[in-house]
């Protein structure tokens, strides 16, 4: 699988299509996000699998935004999985990256990763390597949904109370790019107060994940308290799906219905 990716990256460099390729490298015994440039050896390139498939994934799109904002005229390649592709398409819609300046190099996730992520579409449309694994249902959401209301409330409060307010969920999130963050707005979240007020802190973030969350699961990986954030945002996504038939990033160019300001047609 990695050979096909290396081949593709080499091709892109040789044709002059890209100025750099943002992927992963095995360096100093660790998997690190890495920007390859023309002429660089690709020997240490990896896909982020160490003990389990995809256990060393990083929000490459987020780092790409940093590089692209400093070099807006240049075109970069980036390693993408299914979730990253949904991310890219949403970031284009939100004008955070320019489609013409990004060349995604896609890999499909193995079934094991797709299952553990409960990913609805574990492969990008444009795939250079990997398999087209089957999508998986949100069993984690169904499990919490099955609880009676009072139990559901205590389940979430018992999870939220573990929060140490590290902001890791937002810092790692490839879809968190606002200049003014609600989680840093004194009216909603008091500055300097630890632990954060619950459930306000987590609900504020969940609200802001509406139409944004691409279900990559990196927030849950980054949470030092192991709060099942992914389940929370999957629930948000499922509401968007049921109520508005909207799946973030799946249909390029489509904005979240909650971010549209336009008159509603009669009868709709």
């Amino acid at each position, binding site marked *: 699988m990695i050979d096909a990716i290396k081949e593709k990256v080499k091709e892109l460099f040789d044709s002059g299509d890209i*100025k*750099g390729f943002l992927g992963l490298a095995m*360096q*100093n*015994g*660790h*998997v*690190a*996000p*890495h*920007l390859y*440039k023309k002429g660089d050896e690709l020997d240490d390139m990896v896909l982020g699998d*160490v003990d389990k498939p995809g*256990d*060393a*994934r*990083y929000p490459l799109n987020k*780092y790409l935004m*940093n*590089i692209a904002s*400093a*070099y807006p005229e*240049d075109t970069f390649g980036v390693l993408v999985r299914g979730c990253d592709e949904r991310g890219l398409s949403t970031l284009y819609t939100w004008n955070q990256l320019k489609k013409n300046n990004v060349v995604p190099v896609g890999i499909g996730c193995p079934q094991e990763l797709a299952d553990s992520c409960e990913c609805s579409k574990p492969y990008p449309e444009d795939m250079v390597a990997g398999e087209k694994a089957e999508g998986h249902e949100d069993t984690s959401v169904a499990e919490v949904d099955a609880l009676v209301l009072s139990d559901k409330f205590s389940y979430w409060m018992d999870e939220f109370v573990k929060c*140490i*307010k*590290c*902001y*890791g969920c937002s*810092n*790692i999130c490839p879809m968190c790019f606002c200049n003014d963050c609600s989680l840093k707005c004194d009216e909603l979240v008091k500055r300097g107060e630890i632990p954060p007020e619950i459930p306000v802190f987590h609900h504020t973030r969940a609200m802001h994940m509406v139409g944004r969350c691409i279900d990559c699961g990196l927030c849950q*990986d*980054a*949470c*030092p308290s192991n709060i099942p954030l992914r389940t929370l945002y999957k629930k948000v996504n499922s509401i968007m799906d049921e109520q508005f038939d909207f799946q973030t990033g799946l249909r390029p160019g489509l904005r979240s219905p909650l971010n549209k300001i336009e008159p509603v047609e009669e009868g709709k």
Partner: protein
Amino acid sequence: MDYRTVLTTCTYCGCGCNIFLEVLDGEPIGTIPCKTSPVNEGKLCIKGWNLHEFIRNKGRLTSPLLRKNGKLEEATWDEALEFTASKLKEIKEKNGSDSIGFLTSARVTNEENYLLQKFARGGVGTNNVDHCARL
């Protein structure tokens, strides 16, 4: 264009979380928790997440300061060490070893903490060694 992720260790406490500093054209722009680190497994506390921000902080000391005529002034390392050593010596001779105490730091390495207690016990001759958290 020079973009790198530099593997390093968080300096805030003794845990030793591994991070990558995101460095763009020589400027640190972000902190990335290292997922393959056995210490922090891709997680960080709020201080660690903001490591890149203090590196270029204007308030950081870049040289030793010595109080001269009631005012703190920049000094060379030689000057500062000379002053400290002679003062410590003077106090020890006048009031004895146990009139001096040493406070070590959570922000330095285990080895540096070892060196300080060695200096306190072997050099100055006191067991007055404690941790900065009890300051």
